[in-house]
């Protein structure tokens, strides 16, 4: 069974139909890229998975998203449980600026009541920061505000914040779009490392990035899923004309 199964997923903003009948399966322990020009609905697709889309009062969703066979849109399900299964990293690094580095990682497990005591929390925070390749850089500054970190560090802190909840999958919404090339390549290395234990879905408008990091790739265009397959396949022998034009940079 695939980790995530999306079937007949539709989404609207008001009257605007932004996701059109999406069917998609995301296997385990791979990096899955969703690429497409801006405005094609890829961020919306990401937010439809962890139901963050519902923060937008104009958004409507229909269809199914299953994680490990459980439908996240089922009436019986607790929405906070859903969101804990999906860790999320955003386009703009968004640590809570008024909290310390430590508290940024600790806030999720602490408020969700996932740890029993302080030392367990300390261990969890350390583990998450190590996983995010940030521990060595911040271990002496844990009490300092997160806002003192550089953009790339802040983004890795956000990855640690997501990891600390022990999610089943990590959603990344253009995680390198606002970083300099060096910081961006660090994040990409980190993703490849994390793939050992996690499934990662990355949204990107940059086909080269999808080609570099992903194992599977989906091409989204104007709310429709045009093509999906193994990355090597899609980039070398695209089935669809639109995909071909996109990967060579003629759309975008």
């Amino acid at each position, binding site marked *: 069974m695939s980790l995530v199964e999306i079937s007949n997923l539709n989404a609207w903003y008001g009257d605007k139909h932004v996701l059109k009948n999406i069917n998609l399966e995301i296997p385990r322990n791979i990096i899955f890229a969703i690429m497409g020009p801006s405005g094609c609905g890829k961020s919306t697709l990401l937010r439809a998975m962890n139901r963050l889309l519902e923060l937008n009062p104009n958004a409507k969703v229909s269809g199914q998203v299953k994680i490990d066979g459980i439908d996240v849109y089922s009436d019986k399900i607790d929405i906070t449980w859903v969101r804990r299964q999906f860790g999320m990293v955003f386009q703009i690094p968004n640590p809570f600026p*008024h909290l310390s580095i430590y508290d940024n990682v600790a806030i999720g497990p602490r408020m969700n009541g996932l740890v029993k005591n302080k030392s367990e929390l300390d261990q969890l925070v350390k583990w998450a920061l190590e996983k995010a390749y940030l521990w060595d850089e911040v271990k002496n500054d844990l009490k300092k505000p997160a*806002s003192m970190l550089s953009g790339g560090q802040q983004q890795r802190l956000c990855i640690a914040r997501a990891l600390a909840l022990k999610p089943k999958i990590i959603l990344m919404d253009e995680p390198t779009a606002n970083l300099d090339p060096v910081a961006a390549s660090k994040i990409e290395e980190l993703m490849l490392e994390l793939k050992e234990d996690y499934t990662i879905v990355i949204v990107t408008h940059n086909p080269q990035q999808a080609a570099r990091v992903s194992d599977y790739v989906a091409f989204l265009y104007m709310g429709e899923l045009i093509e999906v397959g193994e990355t090597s396949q899609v980039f070398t022998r695209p089935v669809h004309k639109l995909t071909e034009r996109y990967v060579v940079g003629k759309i975008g």
Partner: protein
Amino acid sequence: MNRRRLEEKIMLGVISLLAIISAIPIFAIIINIYSEGLKYVSLSFLIDFPPPPISGGAGGIGPALVGSLILIGLATVIGGAIGFFTGLYLSEYSHTKLAQYTQMFLQIMVEFPTIIIGLFAYSVLVAPLKRFNAFAGAFALSIVIIPYIALNVREAYKSIPYTLKEAAFSLGLSYPKVYLRVLLSTAKRGVLTALLIGMAKAGGETAPLLLTILGTTFTYFEGLDQPINAIPLLIYNFALSPYERWHQVAWGASAVLLTIILTIFIISRLVVKEVKI
């Protein structure tokens, strides 16, 4: 060209002069209040009963100070709670018709003459009980400060970047935890400023108290259902009295009130100023 340059000089000069003139009163008021009032202020002035109008010792404003503190505290709690949650709704559900209408109502409410709010408190809490009482005063003050607090809390929450809200929800936190813990600590400066503005308003408002708390008692606090005094009301009553001795108490009380207001004002500025991130 020369004529235009001359005109520029003259007009900018006139504007500066008018601006300076309009700022003179505030400095005059502060200087006058302190130079006239401070000489009567001492520890016993803050504790004692007011003096008899003609003979007698120095006296003080003890009951009025106690009354003011009680009224400010109660109004900040009641008005603060209603105002805070109202403002939170206005910010987070700003797309709803309910929020839009409420916001319009609040903007009008800010401009209500406060004496009208006093009349309302009189109608619902004084007339039925047939007794002036402290709670009616606190109730009226709460109403006065609700719109100030609600509109400022709305601003505070509105200023939180959307991406932080998303981050908080993505951690799987419930609505109350997101808004009342994570985001509240992000917006705490704005919320604190809102409460301080409310406190300053509650501390200085007089008109509604005239119709609710009576204010002539020579006793400290005797219960929320009993009359009480407050510093601004004492200033009004004593300043208009025919007795020189009471005028002096009014000046002294004004120095105390001004100090309270200035303190709250300065704290609220420091709160805002503290490095923004």
